[in-house]
């Protein structure tokens, strides 16, 4: 009986530790480029696409690169592993997830934040009258 309780307790403790460690590890922190450069860890940076600087999709390497300005106004070239994200042109802000490598931000993922679906609805109503 006691042995079973001990086994169960160990299982619970191991489970909680496993979960907590993984949870903290896989939560990607929000920072700016300066902090990202210092840590070299995987982070998320929120910012804006700098539209008047070049952006380019290389179909050979399948990488999309563009310039992004973070909240502290630093402009860095972002190289995304993949195609141009959906809604990229419309995005009011973008979030790049990745690491800082040699003056470039290597992103594995770029999320776009678009103006709320409901912002233009008044216009949509007018259109369907």
């Amino acid at each position: 009986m006691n042995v079973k309780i001990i086994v169960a307790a160990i299982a619970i403790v191991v489970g909680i530790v496993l979960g907590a460690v993984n949870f903290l590890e896989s939560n990607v922190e929000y920072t700016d480029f300066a902090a990202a450069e210092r840590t070299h860890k995987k982070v998320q940076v929120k910012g804006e696409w700098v539209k008047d600087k070049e952006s380019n999709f290389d179909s050979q390497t399948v990488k999309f690169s563009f310039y992004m300005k973070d909240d502290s106004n630093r402009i860095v070239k972002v190289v995304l592993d993949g195609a141009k994200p959906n809604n990229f042109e419309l995005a009011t802000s973008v979030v790049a997830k990745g690491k800082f490598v040699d003056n470039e931000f290597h992103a594995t993922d770029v999320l776009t934040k678009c103006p709320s679906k409901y912002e233009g609805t008044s216009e949509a109503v007018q259109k369907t009258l």
Partner: protein
Amino acid sequence: MLIGTLAAVIVKIAFLSALAAGFFYYRTFKLQSNRWLLFARSCYHIAALSLMTASAIFLYLILTHQFQYTYIWNYSSTTLSLPLLISTFYAGQEGSFTLWALYTSIIGLFLMQYASRKDYEPEVMSVYSLIVSFLLLMLVVKNPFAFIWYSFPNDLIQTGPVPAGISNYVMLDAVKNIWARYPVEGKGLNPLLQNYWMVIHPQILFTGFSSMAVPYSLAVAGLLKRDYNSWIRVATPWSVFGSMVLGTGIILGGYWAYETLGWGGFWGWDPVENSSLIPWLLCVASIHTTLTQRKSGAFVKTNFTLSLLTFITVLYSTFLTRSGVLGDTSVHSFVDPGMWVYWLLLGCIVLFAGIGFGLLFMRMKEMPKVPVEHSFISREFALFLGAFALSFVALFVAIGTSSPIITSILKGKASAVEISYYVKTNLPLGIAITFLSGMGQLLWWRHSKTSSLLKSLALPTIAGIVGTLLVLTMGSEEFLILLFTFCSSFSLAANLQVGYGIFMGNPKFVGGSIAHIGIAIMCLGFVTSSRYDEKKTVSLERGKAVEALGYKMTYVGYHPIDNEKYGFNIEVEKGELKKIVTPTMHFSEQTRSTLRHPDLINFLNKDFYVSPVSLEEPSQDNEKSFTLLKGTDVDVADLTVKFVDFDFSNFEKGAMLEGKSFVINVNLEVLEKGKKKQITLKMQNLGGGGPEFIPVTYNSTDNKSYEFRLVRIQPDKEDKSKSQMEFSVKMPQDPSVPQKGETLVVEASVKPMINLVWMGTVTLIVGFALTISRRSEEARAQSERWSKEA
């Protein structure tokens, strides 16, 4: 009165009747007399019938395109096919709450009959009616019949006489001449949802969600009745039914994501997927722990807890995905439904958790304490550990999915967990679950003899080793994956062995083994298809064959499927086989995004899966544009181009605004090696289809051709020297640089043995179905025994 106003009143009636049903059922239970029973029943029937009526009205309004209603305008349009039009019923929040409430109330009608035979009606229906009434309250707050002019008063409500020629209006106040216009077309259904999955998948999922309310209600009823043991026999058929239906819904969603949405796999650990997985896991765990209680009477509190949690997590899941708390952290867009829904859902969780766990706490002391008598090598212990592991998976998934809430409390900024979190935390648990699902079947209740156990272990262990070796040949892998493969193969063989024995004895009892076989096959499919898949991004230039992953692929061109959607044909060759796959891309004006749909070739032992990434048109970067003031010039390669003047001689004043035809000429002077030449660029509008810019080709003396085109004009009437124009020049091709053709970029992947996943799913569902029939027979036998005793 408009029909929607009536429907909204009917919904309110349904809400009040459900509330009354709950109250009078509770009185019936408290008074222990049937004085109010008939009345309570009628109230429930009125509630269910009213909701059915309101739903029928809602469907009628959708089918007849009544865009006077905000919801219908938002999600429907006249261009949808009939099945899709019907599916707009649950395309949005209000509609899916309606569907949930409707299915819950219908299941309640069956539950009422069932419970009255089992002598459980007043207790269970008092709880269940309360649940129905809360779902209906959601519809009272979030009215699906809201009129569009109240949603957009500034745009639609007007005062004064109605202008002639307007027929799509409603008089709101005839005395004050207040009226409202309404749209004649809807915004339409999100193109992402426009396929046959939308017709079938939500229906099944909501049936599953709705049936999860039954085990909860029966658990509370058991607590109310102080019946701590036999309630589980009453509840089990429902728990198994709920698990079967919800499980089917979940896996259909996975197939939808794989086949149509192009997620590349059948599971993306997305909040929407996770949130239906959590209650399913807990429900399955409860099915296992109740088995022990049947045998030995142990796990009384565990069984109450798990059954209560099953429904509470359904509410929590709804809260996560419907209240807007997850915000921007997911690929799904979660519409913020407003504070009312947020607090109502939160209130629901607190209320139903409070009722369930409050009662459990109150009754805790009087519950029978059953000393645990089983040993380590007993089926009870295996079941306990298995259920424990399932609950832990549920907990980890719940924590991961709630990450934005947790992190925003701890760190002040919401962030989601990486997908790797789910894999890392759940893989060890998956190993335990598959091992126990095999081991548990080989063990006896209470205690197993070591000698007989070792004998029965032989075959599954061999199978485990063979399976692991087979997977090893597919490529080296990490230890945990191999262990998972071993346990899955072990479980498969163990359950086949045990299942065969049971089938020979009593085929009715084989459901559990079959379900475990299904799970084992699925797990093997998870390993082969997601851990041994090969992926490669390939650029396919039109007409040129490219070899990837052992397949020869040639992009042969695209064709329009409908106005915004294009199919990209790729010829795939491998040995004898020659097939065309057609992934599609779709630029949706409505959502203003590109939708990409994959295509695949399904072989017996693998899928060849092609998902489109992008289409690269031939590069245009040899085109340059220049802006010139009147009288100035600019160097363009070997040429000097001067802007002479505008020529408005073929232009009537106001023509551009009135849409009349016009021609505007721009005279340029090109200077090349001392020679001058005039060229005229034209901007014209002949057919009234908007201005066109006509390109002009200039051939230089060394036989290069430059293509000029007008981009913009900016005449200045007061100071003509400030007149400006912009033009572009396509530079001559440099023959030494080969020009690149149209290129399609795709991601090709091979998913070995993915058919195992689907096969396992079907097997699992068959196992559930057999178990339902066995457990409902058992419940029937129990109630017959009771009535004999009585």
